[in-house]
């Protein structure tokens, strides 16, 4: 049984040693046990989507051209040296997959690709309509030929529409979607340049939307007996994350940018503590009361009758006092004090601090995977624990082409793998 059994089941328990609630209850098979996913995708969005399926137990075959997924060449690289196996973004989005090289410039390479796609439950791709046409993988034709197949495409602007073939990068997609303008709006009334969020979070949005839609299509297939085409425009996935504010801007001409956030005194803000920043958000009156209580109930927060003054009536001095209070303490001290008094807050953690936090460790959000070339490292899991299904023992990203012969052999007939290699198919 999986070692995560306890974590899955010990709701309400605070430590790893707690007994599972239902120790006698057998876990079922992994979520996507027995499913076959074939992926033809690069960089972040497509590979992230199929990684989620692979980590959930689907057998996932990644088709790569002989040069490999371009993300294999994206800096930074793990020690000791840049190598096509050690790009961190390659490693992060390709766990639990197998890698197959196919030369799709040859007719026989495309034939093997066709056969692999035809044998799959889900075909994940990020190729644009023109590319798919070239590869003889037109989605409409695939649907007609393989009615059970789920054809799952995440492309910058969608399979349909005049922008399908536009050149774009993560930067231009984040700005074309409204997401970057959305990030800027959080900074207050400043009308400075729109800004991408950190890491590759906007690109991940496309992958999340696709994986969600694939699970929907899998349910539909169980119920109605047919596959379908899933068309996700990653820019639309991103803009949906800001749908509330985009709607208000479009329909109501507002809202004004976020009100000044000094001292977290209104509805939330960034505080500078002795060792870094912290975010406090107290929109509800009991949360504001909690913040004031954390500070030791300072006099300025109360009126003559001893009741709390509405925070919107307080002037700048209140914000100054909160900032001063936080500035004299560490993030952790402020965080604990506020949370113990039901005031929502979070320290601005570095990724290394996230990994070392007791909360993340107890929940085993990260698991350590071994890789033949890169050092072993901790990889984040899915952000949910299904308490009825076994968790899959994940594997690190595959070496380029490491499953070519295994996977393609049944599709190569009448060639042997050696003959196919000589013929340039694989």
């Amino acid at each position, binding site marked *: 049984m999986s070692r995560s059994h306890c*974590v*899955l089941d010990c*709701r*309400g328990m605070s430590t790893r040693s707690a007994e599972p609630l239902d120790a006698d209850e057998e876990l079922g098979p992994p979520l996507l046990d027995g499913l076959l996913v074939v992926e033809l995708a690069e960089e972040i969005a497509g590979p992230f989507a199929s990684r989620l399926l692979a980590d*959930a137990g689907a057998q996932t075959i990644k088709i790569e051209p002989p040069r490999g997924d371009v993300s294999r060449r994206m800096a*930074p690289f793990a*020690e000791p040296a840049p190598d096509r196996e050690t790009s961190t*973004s390659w490693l992060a989005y390709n766990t639990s997959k197998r890698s197959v090289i196919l030369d799709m410039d040859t007719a026989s390479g495309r034939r093997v690709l066709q056969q692999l796609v035809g044998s799959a439950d889900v075909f994940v791709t990020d190729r644009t309509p023109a590319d798919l046409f070239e590869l003889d993988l037109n989605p409409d034709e695939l649907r007609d030929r393989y009615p059970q197949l789920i054809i799952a495409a995440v492309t910058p602007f*969608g399979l*349909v529409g005049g*922008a399908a073939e536009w*050149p774009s990068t993560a*930067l231009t997609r*984040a*700005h*074309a*979607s*409204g*997401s970057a303008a959305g*990030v800027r709006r*959080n900074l207050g009334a400043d009308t400075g*340049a729109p800004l991408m969020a950190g*890491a590759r*979070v906007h690109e991940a949005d496309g992958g*999340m*939307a696709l994986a*969600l839609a694939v*699970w929907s*299509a899998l349910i*539909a297939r169980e119920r*109605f007996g*047919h596959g379908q085409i899933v*068309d996700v425009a990653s820019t*639309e996935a991103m*803009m*949906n994350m*800001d*749908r*509330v*504010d*985009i709607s208000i801007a479009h329909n109501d001409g507002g809202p004004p940018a976020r009100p000044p956030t000094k001292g977290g005194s*209104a*509805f939330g*803000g960034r505080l500078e503590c002795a060792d870094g920043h912290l*975010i406090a*958000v107290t*929109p509800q009156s009991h949360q504001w009361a909690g913040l004031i209580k954390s500070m030791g109930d300072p006099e300025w927060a109360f009126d003559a009758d001893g009741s709390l003054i509405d925070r919107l009536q307080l002037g700048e001095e209140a914000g100054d006092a909160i900032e001063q209070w936080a500035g004299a303490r560490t993030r952790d001290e402020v965080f604990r004090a506020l949370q113990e008094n039901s005031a*929502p807050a979070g320290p601005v*953690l570095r*990724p*290394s601090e996230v990994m070392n936090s*007791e909360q993340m460790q107890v*929940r085993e*959000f990260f698991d350590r995977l071994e890789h033949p070339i890169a050092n072993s*490292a901790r*990889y*984040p899991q899915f*952000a*949910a*624990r299904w308490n009825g299904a076994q968790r899959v023992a994940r594997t690190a990203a595959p070496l380029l082409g490491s499953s070519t012969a295994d996977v393609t052999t049944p599709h190569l007939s009448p060639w042997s793998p050696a003959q196919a290699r000589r013929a340039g198919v694989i």
Partner: protein
Amino acid sequence: MTTTTNGSNGHHGLLQAANRPGPLSGKRIIDFTWAWAGPYGAMQLALLGAELIKIESATRIDHSRQRSLAMGSFTGGVNQAPMFNEVNLNKYSIQLNLKMDGAKQVIRDLARTADGAIDNFRPGILEKLGLGYDDLREVNPEIVMVSASALGATGPERNYTGYAPTFAALSGLSYLSGEPQEPPVMMGGSIDLRAGTTAAMAMLAGFHYHARTGRGQFIDASSSEAIGMHIAEEFLHVDLLGRDGDRIGNGHRAYAPHDVFRCASMRAPEAYTDGHKGARSGWIAIACRSDEDWNSLCEYSGLDHLREDPRFRTGLKRWKHRTELKPMIEAWTSERSAVETAEALRAAGVPAAASVWGSDIHHSENFRERGGAVGVRPPETRLREVLPPPWKLSETPAEIVSPAPRLGEDTDYVLGRMLGYDQDRIDALAREGALE
């Protein structure tokens, strides 16, 4: 083109309004969520055809009916809040005061007929009410329940609360967001919707599993982890590079130019023929991935002399001198409109886009060609155009068929039609205060 959904007749028969069955048609889900993250997650399921029954109470109003972190207090009534509408489309609303025994019985009766339940309370709150997973499982062993809390249902911080900006702070994303020389950015509502997307996916995986194995289950989702899973590679940097990443704003670790540049306007004045009001100021994002992109940019912009400048001759040199390069490009963009300039650059093969927002998104050609906005008419307000779902499913489309419900709009419908309570029973519940 905008398709319009009229909510003025209320929600009765909401699902019959859908044109074709969705993946979750016929599924019933108890929706205990409030604020933004949980409701958006539950709404995804409603867009996919499920019957979402939102449990509300006048004694504990979903505060997105009243205010938002970004807007402050909303001055309209509880049935007019635009924030609420955006994350509660396609839902039913029943008013129940869960402290009352009669209301608890309603939940148990709903659970008996339901396929799923979703909440975003602090862990333990529903259990205290006698309505936790173990209670619901007792009446329906096959129920799938997602509980999405700030930090998850286990661990020493499980009782801590949070909102979008704190999830972003606790996951590492805030630290990585912002300009290099400036403090980290406090993130906003988009973080909630990412957490909601994660919770919805967890529920769908649970439903799919149920369809294959007949098993229900409890799913413990953490909103802070949800944001963490969106930035996976940043954690690998810690173990594999021995350091944390840093803030790079709109920049890139290898490419230049790779930034946004101020423009004279969003669009050329003659583009505003249909009366819509777009942004006055404009920004354009331009990314040069190669010498080829760079040469095309220089050629199109007439900045040919930059190609000859030794500071910018190679990709590495452009990257090193990117702060000197930026004002030279901006001198050119600042006399042009963003949308038209981006269009011309793309035609020359250079990745470029106007940085859009609000109406400029709604009026983009590609947005319209892909079906455009959906019009909804919440009962007490005017027509609103909202974004369609983020995925297009060819055979079982996700559809917006209704605006968000009024508070308690469907109480009688849920009790009478869905659960078969007779009027006497409903009246008795009302008398004991269970329907407040």
